[in-house]
């Protein structure tokens, strides 16, 4: 496809460019949270409940206090007066949603294994850990609720003051009669139930916090390994009851987030409260085990999806019903995660009638919240798995069932049955190209040959076509969903006297390469060298306005604000240049960093001359302010809707149950690309993260609510040895939502890959009568599915 809309003409945007972030990261020069040198800082370590559900009795800290280096021990009750409010949940999705009080340190009852019940303050991280060993807590264990149905039954009510474990019921059923009629008249009616296991986000850098107080003037600087310094500043100030202007939040180099650092956590509040009490810096670095037990987890839901279709397999209705696990408490945006998928259970298919309902419940497990994709991987999984079931019911190929149902290109912008407007799309070419990349026909033939030969090594081919909504988000839409904040982003562009450029962004990178991409955008527009553009971020004192990084929003929202701010600067520069050239501003061309008078190419002034003139202000047009600087806050009018098709080829060993990934092709469309190198990297990592849900990762809890995979030895984050080279290609369908024509790409790989792999696994085993395999498709799970189907034993 050719792009129909691309505002970039400078030759920089769209060309792969090596990252300016790399040298510092490659040499150890970057400072992550634990690298900060804070003389005199005290360390904390948390005493965490070993029980999933227990009343907290007496806490005896005497042995801890007698330990060398231990300065103090605080229980939840000791700190209760330090909080102006509980830990925040910013997304009360319904008016009657239950939101149990969630204190940074539990009082009265611990509600999951890992809930902090006391905090040890000590002079070093070693002595803080020693101190934890010396705190004796008298627990009265209670029955743990770990199963979703058990939770919904209210057999044991976890939060007595809520009176129920049901957090909320949220329906999206625009036309119930149409849905009922469609199912009544359906020729094919497919009903599928899928389970999304709990996942541990596991960025390689665990979380960390350092709170640095200034006791005499009341300032507080909070360093945190967070995705959201701006949100954290507002929420932190409110929760502590401190004046917001006195709190500065800095995210140093952040070693990945994947959603789990999109939160306001107990340890951030505890460090600030104790820094206030002790008058010195207080810090904490998470252990990997704590990252597993006490940081948010993702997915955790059961879905039932029903498809109604006519005789040709053309969809007439989709009905999805979820039961979602919030965990023990509501973290920052947890209730909204199912809603982010709620609009997409019909995928990229043209469906007239739609119904979605979600019930969310509390359990005695770690809180859940946004994890890469947040709601959209779940939705895509449901519809893409179900489409394969429909293909079988109709008796057509997995490719054909999709082609018959893709939203036709001429229907864009598409009014979706769930009430969205899909901005742009052209789906069939992504399927066609992905099929080419995996040699679809050859693989089909190979599969048939293996089956005919009775091979025990079964070949499976799985398709996943997806569309997602990202670029969070139009503030008015967020208001309609009861979200507690807006979806805008801010950028400032400042041309310095020497024509070097400073950019301030409210977007907060943690591996995405904003400094490189943002430089490219501005350099392309201004005609300067990208290395002459410095991008400042992640410090609320430098970048006071921001909504931070999540939901594949940085480029389409923050990048657009940046593009607009740069245009604004160019407009001002143009007026100054016109004054300098004694010409009309409308008569000036601007290209390659130089203003020229149309028709008089010898009359020109470089941007550098304008920048210096704006700085000296000796001869500016009447009434014009000195300097070249502009700030823009942009609120998008719509989401953006990236799409694509991924195909996985797997081999399943009937005898061992082992699944091997043989080939993987991804054809994605994120509109215009700024830096194709970064797009590729996002897809590689995203795809592997989704494959990992399909094949390896599982936060396994036992019936007592104990996490059995609480470290990286037991929780199988894939290594290079399990992964393969992926084949990537692209189509380009610019988004009309923003002037750059861009869409997000940070989550697409994860959204697409899980169902591609699971469709391939099921495709391999379908001749045995197997229609579903629970994730992760470990050798044991696959063998059990084979045995349950009466296969080889």
């Amino acid at each position, binding site marked *: 496809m050719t792009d129909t809309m691309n505002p970039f003409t400078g030759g920089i945007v769209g060309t792969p460019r090596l990252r300016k972030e790399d040298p510092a990261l*490659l040499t150890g*020069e970057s400072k992550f949270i634990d690298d900060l040198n804070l003389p005199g800082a005290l360390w904390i370590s948390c005493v965490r409940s070993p029980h999933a559900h227990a009343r907290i009795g007496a806490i005896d800290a005497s042995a801890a206090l007698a330990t060398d280096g231990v300065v103090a021990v605080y229980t939840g009750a000791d700190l209760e007066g330090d909080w102006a409010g509980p830990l925040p949940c910013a997304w009360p999705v319904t008016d009657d949603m239950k939101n149990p009080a969630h204190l940074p340190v539990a009082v009265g009852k611990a509600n999951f294994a890992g809930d902090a019940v006391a905090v040890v303050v000590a002079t070093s991280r070693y002595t803080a850990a020693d101190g934890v060993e010396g705190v004796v807590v008298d627990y009265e264990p209670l029955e743990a609720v770990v199963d979703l149905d058990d939770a919904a039954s209210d057999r044991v009510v976890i939060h007595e003051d809520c009176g129920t474990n049901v957090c909320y019921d949220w329906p999206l059923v625009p036309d119930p009669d149409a849905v009922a009629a469609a199912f009544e008249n359906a020729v094919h009616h497919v009903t599928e139930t899928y389970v999304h296991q709990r996942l541990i986000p596991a960025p390689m850098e665990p979380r960390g916090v350092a709170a640095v107080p200034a006791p005499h003037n009341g300032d507080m600087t909070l360093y945190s390994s967070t995705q959201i310094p701006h949100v954290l500043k507002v929420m932190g100030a409110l929760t502590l009851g401190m004046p917001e202007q006195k709190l500065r939040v800095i995210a140093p180099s952040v070693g990945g987030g994947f959603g789990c650092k999109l939160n306001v956590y107990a340890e951030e509040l505890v460090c600030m409260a104790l820094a206030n009490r002790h008058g010195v810096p207080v810090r904490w670095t998470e252990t990997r085990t704590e990252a597993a037990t006490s940081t948010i987890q993702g997915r955790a839901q059961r879905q039932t999806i029903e498809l109604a279709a006519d005789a040709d397999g053309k969809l007439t209705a989709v009905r999805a019903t979820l039961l979602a696990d919030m965990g023990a408490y509501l973290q920052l945006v947890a209730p909204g995660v199912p809603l982010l998928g709620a609009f997409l259970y019909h995928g990229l298919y043209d469906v007239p009638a739609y119904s979605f309902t979600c019930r969310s419940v509390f359990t005695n497990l770690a809180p859940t919240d946004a994890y890469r994709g947040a709601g959209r991987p779940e939705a895509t999984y449901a519809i893409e798995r179900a489409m394969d079931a429909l293909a079988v019911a109709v008796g057509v190929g997995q490719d054909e069932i999709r082609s018959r149902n893709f939203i036709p290109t001429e229907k864009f912008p598409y009014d979706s049955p769930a009430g969205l407007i899909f901005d742009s799309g052209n789906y069939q070419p992504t399927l066609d190209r992905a099929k080419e990349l995996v040699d679809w026909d050859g693989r089909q033939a190979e599969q048939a040959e293996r089956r005919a030969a009775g091979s025990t090594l079964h070949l499976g081919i799985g398709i996943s076509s997806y569309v997602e909504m990202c670029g969070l988000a139009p503030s008015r839409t967020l208001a309609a969903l009861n979200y507690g904040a807006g979806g805008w982003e801010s950028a400032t562009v400042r041309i310095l006297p020497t024509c070097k450029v400073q950019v301030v962004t409210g977007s907060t990178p943690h591996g995405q390469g904003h400094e490189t991409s943002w430089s490219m955008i501005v350099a392309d527009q201004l005609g300067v060298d990208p290395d002459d553009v410095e991008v400042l971020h992640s410090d609320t004192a430098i970048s006071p306005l921001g909504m931070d990084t999540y939901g594949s929003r940085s480029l389409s929202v923050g990048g657009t604000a940046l593009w607009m701010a740069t245009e604004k600067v160019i407009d001002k520069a143009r007026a100054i240049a016109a004054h300098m050239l004694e010409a009309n501003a409308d008569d000036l061309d601007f290209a390659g960093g130089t203003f020229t008078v149309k028709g008089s190419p010898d009359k020109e002034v470089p941007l550098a001359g304008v920048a210096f003139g704006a700085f000296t202000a000796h001869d500016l047009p009447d009434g014009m302010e000195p300097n070249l600087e502009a700030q823009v806050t942009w609120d998008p009018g719509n989401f953006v809707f990236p799409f694509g098709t991924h195909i996985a080829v797997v081999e399943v060993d009937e005898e061992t149950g082992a699944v091997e990934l043989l080939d993987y092709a991804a054809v994605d469309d994120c509109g215009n690309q700024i830096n194709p190198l970064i797009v590729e990297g996002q897809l590689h990592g995203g795809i592997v993260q989704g494959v990992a849900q399909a094949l390896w990762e599982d936060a396994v809890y036992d019936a007592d609510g104990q996490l059995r995979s609480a470290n990286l030895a037991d929780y199988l984050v894939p290594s*290079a040895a399990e992964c393969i080279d992926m084949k990537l290609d692209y189509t380009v369908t610019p988004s009309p939502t923003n002037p750059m024509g861009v869409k997000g790409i940070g989550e697409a790989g994860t959204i697409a890959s899980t169902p591609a792999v699971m469709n391939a696994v099921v495709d391999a085993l379908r001749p045995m009568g197997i229609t579903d395999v629970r994730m992760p498709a470990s050798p044991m799970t696959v063998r059990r599915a084979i045995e349950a189907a009466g296969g080889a034993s």
Partner: protein
Amino acid sequence: MEVSVTVNGTTRSADVEPRTLLVHYLRDDLGLTGTNIGCDTSSCGACTVLVDGRSAKSCTLLAAQVDGAEVTTIEGLAGDDGLHPMQQAFHECHALQCGYCTPGMVMAAVSLVDEYDDLDAAGVRVGLEGNLCRCTGYQNIVKAVLAASE
């Protein structure tokens, strides 16, 4: 106890508790914070350094165990003439994103390339099994290590 180590060519010493891990000795006592910590179980490899030329997970060694040894950390890799070829390859192949696993991954890769002459992609994948990366999906890391091995 006094632990003395030649780190990146310079002899350094510090008085530490006997239980001090090498990684904490490097980071907290010597101020070499380029070596990161990613887990509690020697699984992730973020803390990989070279001890007497071979890769080792510095969270799995006590500082006392390397008393007298030569240790190379990520800070010691780049020379006056710029990045080490492995660092340069990681840069050129876009083999890092958040960069947290990177120092350990680079050190492990340097050791791997030093140890094996005819590395292919499969060899790199198996050879780096002890180093986890959550961002890149490994494809560009494999590419970088192969490029640097040539």
